[in-house]
């Protein structure tokens, strides 16, 4: 099996599973219990918080709130922030290319009375900074943007955005980094709140974090035992937290080496696909090598994905959350593609586990499939 769908989810690494199993077997005590075993876990979690900040190059102005993953982190960082701070302003900004767990949250807040601006992203995958300057105002309390896009892999100009946001003291910048961590060299301190997720970096599903500046106040999404300073009630999942840290540690420590390898794989694919008149590659000036997106000019994406899957090659059309709906990609639409193009893009996404040999097999099978299957225009 060749797995090129790593932006959907990755295979947990052995170290992560071992760390999880070990903690689940031996450190099951509730970290909020006041006996010594509970305290031990609690203290270890606090050490892990510091280590996670350090791995991301963040200082002690930040804190880590453990959540069930990126969707919850985005909800907490946006809804929790808006509800706490709406008295200071009612305007919030995002882009048209965000993941649903951000876009739909903004739509929800819009329905609750928030003023929302959805920024355009140009063909190069950049936000027009002049447009942004015109939109942001004293009433703006939150900007939420993903540094690296999950469908196309382009990297947005967060540094410029961040500079502008910094000139508005009431406004915070939330960055959904689920697809950034391990995939792109990035200065995480550009954001005031950051979303990270375990299962995108060879960790486990069901664990992620919202990292935020301590000075930012949020309302919780749910209430209960008051864990995480009251922001995320629910028993702390010590084994999952250990696993998240393990995954992040491996990812960050091997970042450069993996990045170079993936650049080679992707380079090989681009070289062998760029002259194929069945497809058009979606390539950007600034982008992660971990994602390669292409439009199919004559074939239906779901059929090609199915054909590749029957050959043992797993790729996705649109993003996995979307691909069972028959909807076009909102990201491609936002970049000015036609409805037809936005329905028929496929995404290859890589991981350190992938090899050059696999990309060679892919090219061979892919060409064969494009040749054999019937097109959508008959």
């Amino acid at each position, binding site marked *: 099996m060749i797995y090129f769908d790593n932006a959907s989810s990755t295979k947990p690494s052995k170290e992560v599973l071992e760390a999880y199993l070990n903690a689940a077997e031996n450190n099951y005590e509730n970290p909020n219990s006041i006996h010594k075993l509970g305290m031990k876990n609690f203290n270890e979690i606090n050490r892990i918080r510091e280590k996670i900040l350090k791995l991301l190059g963040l200082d002690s102005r930040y804190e880590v709130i453990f959540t069930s993953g990126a969707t919850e982190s985005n909800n907490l960082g946006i809804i929790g922030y808006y509800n706490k701070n709406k008295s200071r302003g009612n305007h919030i900004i995002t882009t048209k290319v965000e993941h649903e767990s951000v876009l739909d949250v903004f739509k929800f807040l819009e329905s609750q009375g928030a003023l929302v601006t959805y920024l355009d992203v140009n063909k190069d995958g950049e936000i027009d900074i002049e447009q942004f300057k015109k939109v942001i105002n004293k009433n703006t309390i939150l900007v939420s943007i993903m540094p690296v896009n999950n469908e196309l892999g382009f990297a947005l100009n967060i540094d410029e955005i961040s500079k502008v946001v910094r000139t508005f003291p009431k406004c915070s910048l939330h960055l959904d980094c689920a697809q950034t961590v391990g995939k792109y060299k990035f200065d995480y301190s550009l954001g005031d709140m950051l979303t990270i997720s375990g299962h995108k970096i060879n960790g486990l599903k069901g664990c992620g974090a919202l990292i935020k500046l301590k000075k930012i106040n949020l309302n919780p999404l749910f209430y209960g035992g008051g864990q995480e300073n009251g922001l995320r009630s629910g028993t702390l999942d010590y084994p999952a937290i250990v696993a998240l840290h393990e995954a992040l540690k491996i990812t960050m420590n091997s970042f450069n080496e993996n990045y170079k390898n993936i650049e080679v794989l992707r380079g090989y694919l681009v070289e062998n696909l760029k002259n194929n008149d069945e497809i058009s590659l979606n390539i950007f000036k600034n982008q992660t090598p971990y994602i390669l997106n292409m439009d199919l000019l004559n074939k239906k994406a*779901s059929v090609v994905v*199915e054909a590749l899957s029957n050959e043992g090659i797993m790729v996705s059309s649109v993003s996995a959350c979307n691909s069972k709906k028959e909807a076009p990609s909102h990201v491609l639409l936002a970049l000015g593609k036609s409805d037809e193009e936005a329905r028929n893009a496929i995404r290859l996404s890589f991981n350190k586990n992938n090899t050059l040999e696999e990309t060679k097999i892919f090219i061979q099978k892919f060409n064969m499939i494009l040749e054999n299957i*019937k097109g959508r225009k008959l």
Partner: protein
Amino acid sequence: MKYNVVIVRFGEMSTKGKNKKDFVAKLARSIRIALRENEDDYKMVIRHDHIYLYIINEISNLEKCLAEISGMYSFSLAYKIEDPDLDNLKELALKVFAEENGKTFKIRARRIDKSYPYISDEINREIATVILKNTPWRVDVHEPDVILDIEIREDGAYVFTKTLKGMGGYPTGSIGRCLMMLSGGIDSPVATYLLMRRGVEVTCIHFAAPPYTNSGVIDKLEDILKKLTKYQPKIRLFIVPFTKIQEKIYEISSEGYPITIMRRMMYRIASRLAERLNLPCLATGESVGQVASQTIDSLNVINSVTNLPVLRPLCTYDKVDIIKISEKIETYEISIRPYEDCCTIFAPVRPKTSPHFDECLRIEDQFDFAPLIDECLDNLEVKYIKFEN
């Protein structure tokens, strides 16, 4: 008061003549299969008019199990006493009414054993008198809240207030066998269920055109058929590799005709498989007028490729009614799982609602499909779906 016997009444089988005993034996078999986990908890006695299930130990989901067996008109949860002496009946009736809810009642006695010393009306009056004297219940012979049935037979008296409706139809497999064309949508599972209920043993055929159809469809079909094993414990599913024919059809068909030609090819292949399996007829989930290929004109053109009878249980059903049944038999949620079936990729923008014979023949003449059809039949995949709890 706990019932100690279930009286099972036959469906339309009572209209049968000498072969009735075969039907009854098949019904008995269906009951045995449905209650196989409790085989020591009851004793079955088959008589010419009813089947009796004498309960030894309580069977928890008995009512639900029996309600899902085809060929059963109704069943009553009864209390049997060996000695039908009138005093015993009175005592029993008092116990029954102490537990029933309601205000009005009616006694309905039947004296099947004519040697019993009282006629039915005398039994009615005797029992009713006791109830009226000793309880607040009142008689209403037109719209009673509770009807107490008393059947006097040679082996004792059967007393019951609760009669439940069965599924009707004929026992599974008692009517004959057919080959059902199953797509995995909402309609074909419902059609399959209706056939099973009518006593037809169903074998299924599915046309898969990977990669144009998703491999998830096969999982989906297995899940659907698993739901239907309640009514037919073993179901065979044949999967036809249809891709090559499909591609060829779209290559040579004129505007609006691909679906018509595709259906004709499917019917041809299904007929060949039916012959091979000795199945005397085909069945589909088609409903007249639902889509372009299901207009009367289309059905005529499509049906003409086979000599076998084609059963269309849903032919006059509205979609909403089909959906209601599919919800009842729990296949709806599975059917609506989002996989592309029957090649939505190839669906023409304007399919023909009244295709012409001549045009179909002209299109099919352009290419010799026979070798491809043979290839399909040589490469069938077969799956057996069995009942599991």
